[in-house]
């Protein structure tokens, strides 16, 4: 080949062509979206996340969670993600409007997390009144829009909500607790020895609650026997109890029980990470996406959410 000019132009041209085609035009198409509102201009979705959640996302990215967990639900015709109850509809560009970095993920060594926050049990903000177990589950009048799982771990709420833990575990209607009982290697009687204000049937918090996430991060195999998720001890402080036991101290199973007089508390980073996980929720209906899962993903009414407090899978973590 002779002539440097055609060579140079060709090299530049192929670069510019692919950049224009794969970046510039798609960016024109989906790079300037606005949150969706209803007719009255209310109920914006997605809403910007709190500072704690944003920090949690950075911790999620920096510690490489994205190398095992995806955050995208594929359409029902393309995959079985929706059958797997990972979401009620496929993910759309608008779901990720405020995410930076966006962590869609390329690998599923662990389950998809797009709706992990949505799958948390509905927590009772006014927990103390519900401390006595109600057999019918948390069908308490306090179940209001404020119990939206996205807000479940807002800074005002201590991650380890022991009373609600008791509620959920005592309720026979909530099967995830039973799942935990099956998969947990901790024999039930030992849970009683765990120092704690409330003790569930086997010491395991209901799946995908903030307390569950903390224990899962600290000691994954105490909750999911076959998990190969790394344990994140470095996100937790193991310290001597000074005076009262901290309210957010982890209730651990027998395998990782700490010596008498010691406790394990989450660091601020761990709280942010869990707040982020609890905020992951793509259940809000989007105009551009056809909902395929049941129940229809219209904006969940308070009544609906209190009637089925735990839309989490019934066959265990899928």
């Amino acid at each position, binding site marked *: 080949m002779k002539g440097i000019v055609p060579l140079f132009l060709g090299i530049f041209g192929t670069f510019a062509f692919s950049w224009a085609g794969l970046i510039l035009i798609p960016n024109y198409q989906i790079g300037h979206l606005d949150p969706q509102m209803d007719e009255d201009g209310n109920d914006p979705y997605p809403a910007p996340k709190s500072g704690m959640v944003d920090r949690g996302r950075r911790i999620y990215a920096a510690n490489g969670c994205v190398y095992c967990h995806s955050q995208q639900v594929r359409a029902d015709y*393309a995959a079985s993600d929706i059958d*797997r109850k990972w979401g009620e509809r496929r993910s759309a560009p608008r779901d990720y409007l405020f995410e*930076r970095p966006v962590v869609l993920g390329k690998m599923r060594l*662990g389950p998809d997390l797009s709706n992990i926050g949505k799958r948390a049990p509905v927590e009772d903000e006014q927990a103390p009144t519900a401390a006595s177990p109600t057999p019918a589950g948390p069908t308490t009048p306090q179940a209001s829009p404020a119990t939206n799982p996205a807000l479940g771990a807002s800074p005002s709420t201590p991650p380890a909500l022991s009373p609600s833990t008791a509620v959920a575990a005592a309720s026979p209607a909530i099967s995830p607790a039973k799942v935990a009982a099956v998969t947990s290697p901790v024999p039930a009687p030992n849970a009683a020895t765990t120092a704690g204000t409330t003790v569930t049937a086997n010491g395991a918090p209901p799946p995908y609650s903030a307390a569950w996430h903390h224990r899962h991060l600290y000691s994954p195999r105490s909750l999911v026997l076959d998990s190969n998720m790394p344990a994140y001890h470095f996100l937790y402080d193991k310290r001597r109890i000074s005076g009262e036991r901290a309210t957010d101290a982890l209730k651990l199973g027998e395998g990782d029980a700490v010596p008498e007089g010691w406790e394990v508390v989450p660091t601020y980073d761990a709280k942010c990470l869990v707040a982020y996980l609890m905020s992951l929720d793509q259940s809000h209906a989007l105009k551009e996406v056809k909902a395929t899962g049941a129940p229809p993903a219209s904006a969940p009414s308070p009544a609906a959410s209190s009637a089925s407090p735990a839309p989490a899978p019934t066959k265990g973590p899928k």
Partner: protein
Amino acid sequence: MNPADVPLRPPTTSESDVTIRDVEQVERALIDASTRLPVLFFYGSAIVWLLLGTLLAGFTSFKLHAPDLLANVSFLTWGRVRPAHMNVMVYGWASMAGIGTAIWLMARLCRTTLQHPLLLIGGAAFWNLGVLLGVSGILAGDSTGYEWLEFPPYAAILLFVAYSLVVSWAMLMFRFRRGDHIYITQWYLLGAFLWFPWVYGATQIMLFVVPLQGVMQEAVTWWFANNLLFLWFGAIGLGTAYYMIPKVIGRPVYSYHLAAIGFWTYALFASWTGMQRLVDGPFPAWMITASIAATILTIIPVATVGLNHHMTMRGYFGLLRYSPTLRFTVFGAISYTVFSLVGVLISLRSVARYVQFTQASIAYSHLGLYAFFTMVMFGSMYYIVPRLVGREWRYASLIKLHFWSSTYGVGLMVLMLLTAGVAQGGALDNPALSFTETSEYVPMYLRGRSVSGLLLMVAHFVFAFHFGLMLFGLGRTASVPTFLNPQEEEALEARL
């Protein structure tokens, strides 16, 4: 085939011919001497990064089946060691080895000596510093979270400065080249040298300076990753193969026209790939389909390049028995075909449905970065290093050990990961199986992968030791290169 049957170049008898060849010999020696320090510095650094990356890889692989190991140590958590391994390999090993080879090839093909080589050493030092800072940043918890781009921006800036030095020197050599013929290798190298800063710079700007909204960041990441794989590593690797194969067997490339078709279709189609990795994600379907189509069309350049190499090699395959360079390079060239065909296969929607979120994509990257690129780089190092240090490789047995452990290592790894991907992907598609049941298929293959990692570790430490011997002047003083099988050395001596 008996190497004695290999047709020899007609002996040069006329006096003028002899003089020209003598002049060329001296000229080559001068060019090699001018590139000695920077190229050896790039190679040496690359090999140090290779060893570090191998250790990190072993650690990553091992932690997957020992997840509670060192849970207290934040900077050794799996999610930080894995990107550290990947970035050390991509920017530390592969890029530095690639730049070293590219500089040497550029000087040889432009028939110019390298002026002011010390400035290039500065470039290499900056590059090392950038990789070091970046990897420390990742381990300290500063990773950006974008795959292949985990280096924090402060490290990326250093890499960019270092790269500007390197690319200016390459361009200067090209500007002052002698002779107006531009060889195929030079097209690829020129392309690589120009594509890399454009793609890297554009990506950094779109992610960190004026960040794009939402999912477009992911699109940019995959656009970058695939362009890096094809237009940077792929271009250097193919360019090197186009030089080494004809050079070692002493025969011109079969067809220039095929090479030109191969180059331009490669540039056009390979640059449009990337989005197939996002299949059925939250993106407009057309951009994914466009990338799938482009991936399928890369069959054209792959076929032309493969055909060209094959026709060049025809009748000379017997030489694979003797020349280490040829053996590594041909293995790499064949892997390139396999890599591309696997890429086409896993990009098809019907296949991606199963393998998209599984280990298969890791198998694919290792096919490209290791079985193809790294093997071609090893081959070029076996050719270039003796010409820089004036010694021949000391032990043929070590080269053979290196080749076979690399070959079996990467073969086993790809086999394990592909099988794991298909097995897990099939299970994932069946919603009746719970997630924990689907991932039960994976650990045994991951153990197999750890074994392959041990083989690669042997290969790399053997190679590093051998390279160290060369560096400290402990190679053989001989006028013939080191052959893998010395029996018929004399027969070859006449030719090579």
